[in-house]
């Protein structure tokens, strides 16, 4: 057995450098002759931008050059990577997304000008001397108001503020409506999925560099997908071919989706460095991050479930307003549609489903994918509505769910919303969670709480998610302007050590630990013999990066395919060395053997032969041992699970305490249980943050009310309970070589509805008939609901 193979809870090797302060983040990169940029950002949400006068600022100390929108006339806008087709078959409305505000300011935080100077303080001083002439316009903030006739338009050249009106599956709509008419019971719920700011610990940073000697540009950036940034920025914005453009994303301190997208600041630094011929650096302050990082969620929905007289779900329909913000961020249009609508079946057999989504432009920061992206919004609607339904019908919410589950024998299961779940066992995770959460002991605990003057409640939620994103031909049909394969090169060195160059990118996921575990297992060598290289377009094959819980399922699969090619070639070499036939060669524990004989040759001897090919079948194979594979998944993967949360509510203040949290997940096969557990902890932490604390709010004028940690509440350790994590219910994915499904987003998807359900359970059990409270469940909101 190799040391630290598949299934070992190996400690994360990258943590040694992170925990000892030796990580190398983008902000640690300082180049010779580097200049600093400060962006002058809009402090109003909507205005006509008449003129930007930089004359006096230009002469200030340390200023090298000031850029305004005029400098970008020959440059493209930031591209959108997904085109959604509306319910009438028309393409979405797609406004230009300029690097700097052109003629109009459309959200607080939009870039108006950029001062490049010798020092950051000089750049900031000069920015204050820039005179901006603008006329404020009424801001469009509320989505429904934005869709009303005569609403001010965010983009004057569009017909309205509606990006698209999407119906899915449009052909089913009539049948769904008919099922509602025949229903024995209908439950309706209106809810808000609150806008969030991702707040990775490391804010965004970009350093642009230009090399006159070969006319090449380099961008160092905090990205989850450097190849995607190279393609988008090079081809669509700046017109730099890939062979003259290198993008490096070194250690990245958390992404959570918000570092997927191509941002104006990245293009700016690359562009300005080439113009000035000196490196240009930008490090976002936390205040800038609040108003320039893409936000997450922000859906307003109405969901309805129809049931027959036996409590079987017969139909489901939802109407959602999804906020796009002022411009379309890179993948924004796909989030409320192909990552949300297609998940509305959840874990249930509901035969008829119709989803409507209106994507709306408003004078707010662009909204895009955030941990879970669309799937949390779908799960939240469904699991909240089922809970309400159970209360209306007076049935046990766990049993109502169980009764409507897709059963284990129904897999593969084609849902009415276009996807086919390959495997799953929802009964198993439900039973597991009920057991681990000691649900039978709840009444006694609730009585105990009551003695202490507290209201205790228990909430359940199931989730299903689609990850391992995604089959390229499928997403191409759905409007993606990119493929979603992944790549890996497995380079074996002469003495047997291995370097894997992957297109995936690790920014907290622990790839440097888990990926070697897989290789170690395949070859039978220690994981310490394997090194992972990622994050630099100059030395990794073209890859699509890390998001959507895709790294192991897609990137890991590419690595397995490349390693299989390596092993096949190594077997040919071993066969030659042992004068045996290739078909008889076996590889185990780092030794090649000839079956049925005692002949063997070690892995290191074979790799040496590949690079010192003195005794080598040169007439049949090339020297060297290095292979590349691109893997395009056949389907999404479908992790699922059951989350149970227990809370106490203080009746006097409305304060909610989360007492415990149980997560029973089916992630398929698990490579490193400890890392998986950590991913669930983090996801649940973010889910609790969304459900209880985090609230990105604008006032009617488009000013961001929660623009710092004074008002934007991030979850802290003391806000979180102990979390019980179980992933023993495993139905391996049927279509990727590792049988893995992905675990990165599950925690953030399943936890918000479990928590909100628990609070409502506490209230309703104790005489407060409250149907719903919108997240975050702040003490004020909970108290107000109890005292209406």
């Amino acid at each position, binding site marked *: 057995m190799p040391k630290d193979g598949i299934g070992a809870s190996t400690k994360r090797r990258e943590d040694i450098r992170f925990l000892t302060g030796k990580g190398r983040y983008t902000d640690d990169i300082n180049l010779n002759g580097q200049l600093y940029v400060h962006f002058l950002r809009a402090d109003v949400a909507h205005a006509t931008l008449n003129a930007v006068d930089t004359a006096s600022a230009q002469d200030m100390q340390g200023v090298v050059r000031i850029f305004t929108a005029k400098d970008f006339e020959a440059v493209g806008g930031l591209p959108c990577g997904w085109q959604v087709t509306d319910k009438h078959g028309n393409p979405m409305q797609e406004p230009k997304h300029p690097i700097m505000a052109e003629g109009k300011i459309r959200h607080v935080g939009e870039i108006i000008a950029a001062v490049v100077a010798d020092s950051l303080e000089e750049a*900031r001083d000069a920015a204050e001397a820039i005179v901006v002439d603008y006329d404020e316009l009424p801001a469009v903030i509320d989505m429904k108001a934005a869709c009303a006739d005569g609403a001010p338009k965010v983009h004057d050249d569009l017909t309205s503020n509606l990006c698209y009106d999407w119906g899915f599956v449009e052909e089913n709509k009539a049948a769904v409506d008919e099922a509602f008419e025949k229903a024995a019971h209908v439950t309706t719920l209106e809810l808000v999925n609150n806008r969030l700011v991702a707040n990775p610990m490391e804010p965004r940073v970009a350093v642009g560099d230009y090399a006159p000697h070969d006319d090449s540009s380099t961008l160092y950036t905090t990205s989850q997908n450097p190849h995607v940034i190279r393609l988008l920025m090079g081809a669509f914005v700046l017109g730099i071919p890939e062979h003259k453009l290198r993008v490096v994303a070194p250690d990245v301190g958390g992404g959570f989706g918000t570092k997927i997208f191509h941002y104006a600041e990245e293009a700016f630094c690359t562009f300005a460095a080439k113009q000035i011929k000196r490196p240009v650096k930008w490090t976002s302050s936390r205040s800038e991050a609040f108003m320039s990082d893409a936000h997450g969620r922000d859906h307003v929905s109405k969901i309805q479930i129809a049931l027959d007289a036996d409590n079987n779900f017969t139909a489901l329909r939802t109407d959602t307003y999804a906020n796009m913000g002022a411009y379309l961020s890179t993948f924004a249009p796909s989030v409320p549609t192909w990552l949300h609508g297609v998940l509305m079946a959840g874990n249930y057999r509901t035969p008829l489903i119709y989803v409507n989504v209106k994507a709306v432009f408003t004078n707010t920061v662009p909204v895009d994918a955030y941990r879970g992206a669309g799937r949390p919004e779908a799960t939240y609607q469904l699991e909240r509505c089922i809970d309400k339904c159970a209360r209306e019908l007076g049935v046990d919410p766990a049993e109502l769910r169980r009764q409507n589950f897709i059963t284990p024998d129904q897999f593969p299961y084609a849902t009415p919303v276009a996807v086919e779940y390959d495997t799953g066992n929802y009964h198993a995770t439900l039973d597991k969670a009920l057991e681990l959460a000691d649900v039978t002991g709840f009444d006694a605990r609730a009585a105990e709480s009551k003695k202490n003057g507290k209201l205790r409640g228990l909430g359940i939620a199931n989730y299903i998610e689609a990850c391992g994103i995604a089959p390229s031909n499928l997403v191409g049909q759905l409007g993606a302007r990119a493929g979603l394969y992944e790549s890996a090169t497995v380079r074996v060195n002469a003495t047997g050590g291995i370097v894997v160059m992957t297109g995936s990118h690790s920014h907290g996921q622990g790839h440097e630990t888990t990926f070697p575990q897989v290789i170690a297992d395949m070859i039978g060598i220690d994981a310490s013999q394997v090194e992972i290289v990622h994050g630099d377009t100059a030395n990794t094959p073209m890859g699509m990066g890390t998001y959507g819980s895709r790294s192991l399922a897609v990137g890991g699969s590419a690595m397995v395919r490349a390693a299989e090619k390596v092993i096949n070639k190594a077997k040919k070499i071993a066969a030659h060395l042992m004068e045996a036939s290739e078909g008889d060669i076996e590889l185990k524990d780092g030794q090649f053997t000839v079956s049925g004989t005692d002949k063997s040759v070690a892995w290191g001897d074979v790799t040496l032969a590949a690079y010192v090919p003195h005794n080598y079948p040169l007439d049949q194979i090339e020297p060297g041992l290095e292979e590349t594979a691109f893997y395009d998944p056949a389907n999404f993967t479908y992790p699922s699970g059951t989350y149970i949360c227990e809370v106490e509510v203080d009746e006097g*203040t409305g*304060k909610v305490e989360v007492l415990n949290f149980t997560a029973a997940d089916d992630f398929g096969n698990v490579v490193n249980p400890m890392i998986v557990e950590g991913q669930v902890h983090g996801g649940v932490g973010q889910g609790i943050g969304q459900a209880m604390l985090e609230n990105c709010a604008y006032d009617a004028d488009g000013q961001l009310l929660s623009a710092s*940690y004074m*008002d934007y509440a991030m979850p802290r350790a003391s806000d979180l309970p102990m979390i019980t994590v179980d992933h023993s219910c495993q139905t391996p994915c049927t279509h990727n070589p590792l049988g893995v499904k992905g675990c990165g987003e599950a925690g953030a998807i399943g936890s918000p509805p479990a928590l909100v359900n628990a609070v409502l359970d506490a209230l309703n059990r104790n005489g407060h008939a409250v149907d719903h409270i919108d997240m975050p469940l702040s003490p004020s909101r909970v*108290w*107000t609901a109890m005292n209406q």
Partner: protein
Amino acid sequence: MYNFEFVKPSSVEEAIAALKEEDAQPLSGGQTLIPTMKQRLNQPSKLVSLLGIAELNGVSAEGSTVTIGGATPHAVVAADASAYPALAALASNIGDPAVRNRGTIGGSLANNDPAACYPAAALASGATIVTNSREIAADDYFQGMFTTALDEGEIITGVKFPVPEAANYQKFEQPASRFALTGVFVAKYADGVRVAVTGASNDGVFRWTEAEEALSGNFSADAISGLTVDASDMISDLHGTAEYRANLVKVLTGRAVAAC
């Protein structure tokens, strides 16, 4: 941050002289002032640090009075004000360790943030704010959000707290900043009960006189059960409505009394 000069005098007299310069400002722990300077919201020409003046730092107890130097950090109050346990407990729960080790009582009272903790303690205790030139009763000192009786160039050198028979501070934290969303300080003296509320009102810290009367007759949570708190002057923001804060005033007062 804009450029500024920095001086660190070792006596109150030197500090007062240095503060005569236009746009000079005292700097104590810097936990409030420095962030506003980093945001370029404040542009003092000169910062006069009070941390080099030994007499401004420390806690002393004499008879039934605890005196705290104007530049005493919260952590020192938490550790040394054992003669006034409710005050020490309040100090131990301000901000995080960095804030407690740097931030000072004088800075807090001079700033008079409507959600700060010390103003509630000072007002409920009927404390005396001592400055370089006079003594100001707490009842006269607090004059609304971020507004005090301090004159330009006047500094707080100390605060005298009469130690009550019993006292308790109930802080209900705003979930983001963890300042007081509402905080109630109840102090019981031989001659009556004082109740001061922070975080709740548009007018800053205030005394809830109805509760004081009720509690002075009957020092139990029941005594205030019939009272209502008027929500009309309460703060309403992202974190809580005016009605909610009015509720907190009553609930926290009851809990403070019960905990005394």
